């Protein structure tokens, strides 16, 4: 790996692994009086937060770097880790740099978390968005616009700054840029997976959770430049698509392990909230209308957004075939019910299309992976050995 890439990736790793939100605190020090708003990962209208002059901070759990001491008592067994680590971070003061938290109804656990959070951290702004799940109704866009407006009003009250349409359009544009850079990064890897390591672009991407989008854009441009001139030789590998880790994130070592075991990842749904729209959001006209209509009609499929017009299991097969992947690897967070459910229909559809797949469950807090390694290796062996 070129040294430039290496140091860039290392910088990102430090940002990502800093549980005390150092980047956020530094940003706040540099912008006295400005607010930072955390959001639970899958989808959040970051443009609104940005346009209100605040720093949106994506929360993707705490990995194995935090011991659960308090949150376990509140959520207990059979609940995924990210819900507990997020609460634990709140309860232990790690989220103190944040002035508010934004949740949406992606699943029952996350939804209840929003309100448990509110009770346990009185004084913080906590909002809960209802993202419409029926995009085919004539009233959906209007409803979502209303929801954004409600949230915008709350932000205005919190930050004391008017949220005007020009600011919003500017925010849309800068996030369009961010998403475009990420799409380029993904495109680069899909074209030459032997040169671009998934774990690297993962870190590059995740660092954006804590940085102002403008800074992240620069970082991504830098990354695109240096990654493009890798020069590794292709190995004997299986080309796969990863599905299922859209919310709680697999440990970095697990992502590396998957690559080392002989998989080339052509696409994944890690950190999906950062790449939510399939294309650019119109940065002209009524910005709330643009955002709402793009959410309803031009967002990526996921296990926590429902659109009965375009069924996910068909979309996954289509994507796998389009990318020329040989197999699908399901990487599902333990106790992530939406992902578990989707697996059933995915499996049926993949089997009908004769696409092999493997299901792995992970927990963000795991750090030994003997069993998972055996499973991935077996899978690779079954596809590679004659």
């Amino acid at each position, binding site marked *: 790996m070129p040294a430039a890439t290496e140091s860039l990736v290392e910088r990102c790793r430090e940002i990502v692994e800093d549980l005390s939100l150092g980047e956020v605190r530094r940003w706040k020090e540099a912008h006295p009086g400005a607010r930072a708003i955390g959001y639970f990962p899958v989808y959040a209208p970051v443009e609104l937060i940005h346009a209100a002059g605040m720093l949106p901070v994506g929360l993707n759990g705490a990995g194995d770097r935090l011991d659960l*001491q*308090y949150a376990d*008592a509140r959520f207990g067994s059979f609940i995924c880790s990210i819900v507990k680590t997020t609460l634990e971070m709140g309860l232990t003061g790690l989220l103190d740099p944040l002035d508010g938290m934004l949740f949406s109804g992606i699943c029952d656990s996350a939804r209840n978390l929003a309100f448990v959070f509110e009770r346990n951290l009185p004084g913080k702004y906590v909002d809960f968005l209802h993202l419409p799940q029926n995009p085919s109704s004539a009233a959906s866009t209007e409803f979502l616009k209303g929801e954004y407006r409600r949230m915008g009003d709350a932000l205005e009250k919190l930050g004391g700054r008017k949220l005007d349409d020009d600011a919003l359009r500017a925010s849309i544009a800068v996030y369009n840029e961010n998403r475009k850079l990420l799409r380029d990064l993904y495109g680069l890897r899909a074209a030459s997976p032997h040169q671009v390591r998934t774990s690297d672009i993962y870190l590059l991407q995740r660092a954006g959770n804590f940085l102002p989008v403008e800074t992240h854009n620069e970082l991504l441009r830098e990354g695109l430049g240096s990654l493009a001139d890798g020069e590794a030789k292709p190995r004997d590998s299986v080309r796969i698509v990863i599905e299922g880790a859209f919310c709680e994130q697999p440990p970095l070592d697990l992502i590396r392990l998957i690559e080392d075991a002989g998989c080339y990842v052509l696409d994944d749904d890690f950190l999906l909230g950062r790449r939510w729209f399939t294309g650019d959001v119109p940065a002209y006209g009524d910005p709330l209308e643009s955002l709402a209509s793009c959410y309803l009609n031009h967002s990526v499929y996921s296990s926590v957004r429902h659109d009965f017009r375009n069924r996910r299991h068909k979309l996954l097969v289509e994507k796998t075939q389009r990318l020329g992947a040989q197999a699908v690897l399901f990487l599902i967070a333990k106790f992530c019910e939406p992902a578990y459910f989707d697996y059933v229909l995915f499996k049926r559809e993949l089997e009908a299309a004769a696409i092999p797949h493997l299901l792995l469950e992970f927990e963000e807090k795991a*750090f*030994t992976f003997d069993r998972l390694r055996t499973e991935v290796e077996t899978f690779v062996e079954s596809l590679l050995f004659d």
Partner: protein
Amino acid sequence: MRIAAGVDVGSTQTKAVIVGEDGGIRMLGYALVDTGANVQRAAENGFLAACRESGVEPEGVGYVVGTGYGRYKITFGNTQMTEISCHARGAHYLFPSTRTVIDMGGQDSKAISVGEHGEVLDFVMNDKCAAGTGRFLANAAEVLGIGLEEIGPLSLRARHPVKITTVCTVFVESDILSYLAQGKKPEDVLGGVHLAIARRTVSLARRVPIEPGITMTGGVSRNTGMVRALEEVLGAKMQVSQQAHFAGALGAGLFAIEKMGESFESGIWRASNATPRG
């Protein structure tokens, strides 16, 4: 003197305590036997041994309260109570300032919030899995080939405790083996094991309010390493009595005295009631 007994038939060990009352309540003697395969027999043996220890004739015991997981199997007992009520009561007797009890036994661990008079205000128990119980420790001791009494003191010598993630009592065996294979010292492995269990236990215990006056009971309280690990994770000192292992039986004995009331009727124990030997 009125004499009563408490018998705590645990999954691993059976504890019996004889208490007597004349004016104040005193613990006259206690005994510990392995529960083994015959729960009834263990209860009897424990009871008789405790009588011998106290110099009391079995026939002179007026009331027996059974507790622990095998409590319904005690044929000579007058009544049963759950080990939760008993541990709370026993801990309160040992340390009247007790407000929180952490009990770690062979198969379960629990935390009890206790009121001023030793009454249970709230409690939590672990789920149906041997992860993080005394058995987990016993197993680790076995894998390492070290006596149960020694693992605690040894774990205190850990400089760089390893990180144990497996909670499964069976899987931890291979974790331990692979750490040893990597050349880790037994004390560091044990340190890791103790810390892992302490974290698990404390996270369970936090479901009840942990108030100062924390008393530890149950067999694992004899493990100094575990006591220390718990204190470290809790960030607080615990009170551990020499008799902590007997807290459940003691509590049962105290309830027995209470239930005996005035109508003292001796001779609950009759040799003829005993389970036939052989």
